[in-house]
């Protein structure tokens, strides 16, 4: 990360570097990273495009995604209809663009929920330790033991159908992962010397936690959040596909794929193209997450 780069490029004439020999050796890593990051830029571009679709869908696909021209039904991809049309003659590209807001906002709600709950639980368990840690982590064990999809389905059955409820269900499923990671990070930072030094400086439990432990634990959590964002899009699409998410005719991505599956043999574009969009967004989120995770080391 930048700190290492600055340390490496610090001018020895100004201040004799007194690190041990291995640390004082300049590293060329930042330079090589810069040359190979085209895939990172591509990932950011994909996510940015998806966000733009969600915010201003009209700019990309003017027209109503819910009404079609029955005469134009099941047309293959062409210049007029980039992704082709569906059984009701609706432009598929327009539906994908207008569906972005459902998938992305759902993923956002899911990640926010998982992040908030999981981080709080993990921080409490890691910081207090002892019996509290044991109890919380056994709860997390139970959550991890239930298959994610099953957990989401049960939550939806309790809460009722809908995009928001599907998002909450997916979010609850990721609480365990966030809690585990946060706990391990807090436990690691809590044993470090600077935390002990902070107690030695007269810090109370709360001040040390707020000022040192949490800021130093959060980077991997942010990386996981980016990763979970991709996973959540996938999970919400899965729930939509199974019919547990938004009801038709909402152009939610999972639902689009589900509607197209009856025509796979004759109109492949109805499943393949929305599917590819989901794959691209998920992969991009993973790539960005990977980058954040690398920076933390």
């Amino acid at each position, binding site marked *: 990360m930048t*700190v290492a780069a600055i340390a490496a490029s610090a001018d020895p004439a100004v201040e004799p570097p007194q690190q041990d020999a291995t640390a004082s050796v300049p590293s060329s890593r930042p330079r090589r990273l810069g040359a190979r990051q085209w895939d990172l830029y591509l990932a950011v571009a994909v996510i940015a495009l998806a966000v733009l679709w969600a915010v201003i869908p009209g700019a990309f696909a003017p027209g109503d995604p819910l009404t079609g021209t029955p005469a134009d039904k099941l047309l293959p991809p062409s210049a007029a209809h980039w992704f082709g049309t569906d059984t009701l003659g609706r432009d598929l590209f327009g539906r994908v663009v207008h569906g972005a807001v459902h998938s992305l906002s759902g993923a956002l709600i899911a990640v926010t929920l998982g992040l908030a709950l999981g981080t709080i639980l993990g921080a409490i368990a890691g910081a207090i330790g002892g019996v509290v840690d044991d109890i919380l982590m056994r709860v997390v064990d139970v959550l991890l033991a239930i298959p994610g999809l099953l957990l989401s389905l049960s939550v939806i059955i309790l809460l009722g159908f809908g995009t928001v409820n599907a998002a909450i269900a997916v979010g609850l499923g990721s609480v365990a992962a966030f809690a585990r990671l946060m706990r391990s990070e807090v436990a690691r930072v809590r044993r470090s010397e600077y935390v002990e030094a902070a107690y030695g400086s007269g810090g109370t439990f709360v001040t040390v936690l707020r*000022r040192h432990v949490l800021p130093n634990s959060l980077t991997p959590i942010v990386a996981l959040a980016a990763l979970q964002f991709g996973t959540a899009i996938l999970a919400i699409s899965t729930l939509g596909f199974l019919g547990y998410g938004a009801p038709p005719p909402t152009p939610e991505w999972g639902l689009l794929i589900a509607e197209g599956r009856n025509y796979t043999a004759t109109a492949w574009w109805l499943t393949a193209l929305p599917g590819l969009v989901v794959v691209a967004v998920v992969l991009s989120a993973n790539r960005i997450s990977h980058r954040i995770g690398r920076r933390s080391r």
Partner: protein
Amino acid sequence: MTVLAVDDLRVSYATREGRREVVHGVSFEIAEGEALALVGESGSGKSTTAHALLGLLPAGGRVEGGAVRLGDLDISGWSDRALRGIRGPEIGLVPQDPVTSLDPVRTIGAQVEEVLRLHGHRDRRSRRARAIELLERVGIDDPDLRVRQYPHELSGGMRQRVLIASAIALRPRLLIADEPTSALDATVQRKVLDLLDELRREEGTSILLVTHDLGVAADRAQRLVVLKDGRIVEQGESAQVLAAPSDGYTKQLLADAPAFTTGFRRPEAPPFLRDAAGVAAENPFAITATGLVKEFAVAGRERFRAVDDVSFRVRRGTTHALVGESGSGKTTTARLVTRFHQPDAGAIEIDGEDVTELSGQRLRALRRRIQLVYQNPFASLDPRQQIVDIVAEPLQNFGVGSRAERRERSLALLDRVSLPSDVARRTPGELSGGQRQRVAIARALAIDPEIVVLDEAVSALDVTVQARILELLTSLQSELGLTYLFISHDLAVVRRISHTVSVMRRGHIVEEGNTEDLFHDPQHEYTRELLAAVPGRTEQPA
């Protein structure tokens, strides 16, 4: 006959602004059976020079010019593949850190045998036999058992011996030892250096010793090459360089090497002779520890007694040193005194007040009076905070002053520990080790403590930096009337700073007294051993 001749070697590294040359034309020669020391502080290019000889520069490093001749062979500009044939049979490398240089999941035997296997020794049995022979050669007891053990089962000194064993496995003509003992205790350091010496004498192996400590270099090498900023500032016979250094930098190094310190800090006259207030205070001792015991639970074994009946007293305004090698319980004692650990038995009095049982708010209040400075300045500062906030943290915790006042005090402290004012807004990652340790000291002084406990506070630093920090500590002590408890494994450093000493071994104090008496007339055998480990010592114990 010359084993290695280096002529005008230049090495550069890639930085973001382009290539920067760090070694500017270094030339030296090593004769057969000779030990030559490359001396200089971190960043002087000594390790880079040593690694460049073997073609083992880290990524981004490149040899820009110059010739390297190994015997009659010119190996400069050889490809990595060609150099591989040289590494091992011709030149052996003893790396710096024995803890990270061995693979933790492979046995000692496998790692020593690897160099044999790579260079065409096909027979498994003979390889194993040779590995055992090598381990025996470097003085490892019970080599038949050790070949089957893993690195974590061996102590630091033993691991360094294992590394030496693999370096000499193919009987190279030259051994490059890159700070081979910096990570080791003083006594272990001496034994490892003795071993290198012995190999040189008996096998005729030449040695290139890379070190920052002029004391070690002068003791072990026939010739010295002093490097500064990638240039040779002085070279010649060791005795000659020591007796009459011609360069200013060499003189500086000589003055800073703890081994060459002369004189002692004598305890000042008892308080009743000089200080009326001291007489009024009925207790002249800042720290009184009585019969401290601390045990730790070890899984599957009986409890380990780290500190066993340790008692000492420290007079106000003086420095008391706890000396011993790793595992002697000195750090645990320091942590008991600062109350990061609770003693199992015994009592600690700070300024006459019993603090053994303090907890909660009263323990927090104790932190205003006693502060700890850690060994590793890379770990003890929060990497995300600005320096000015780190130093002001104790003030903030105790609610001293307003925000602006705290900031002002923090800046004044940074100035007091001789840091330039522009470090205030930087983060620890941008500072060197010595600068960080100054920050840690400034933080410890922020709330005007009476006692500062220094846990190996200078052990991780270069000798020059070490000397500067010790000077700073001494001047702070006389200015602020601080009491120091100084933990160290190195008697040479202790001599420079402390008035009184306790020597610890296996949780016991084996000897204590004034530093001067202890140096001149050590009573315990272990103290003598520690004294003998000080490199380049001129005076002998009486």
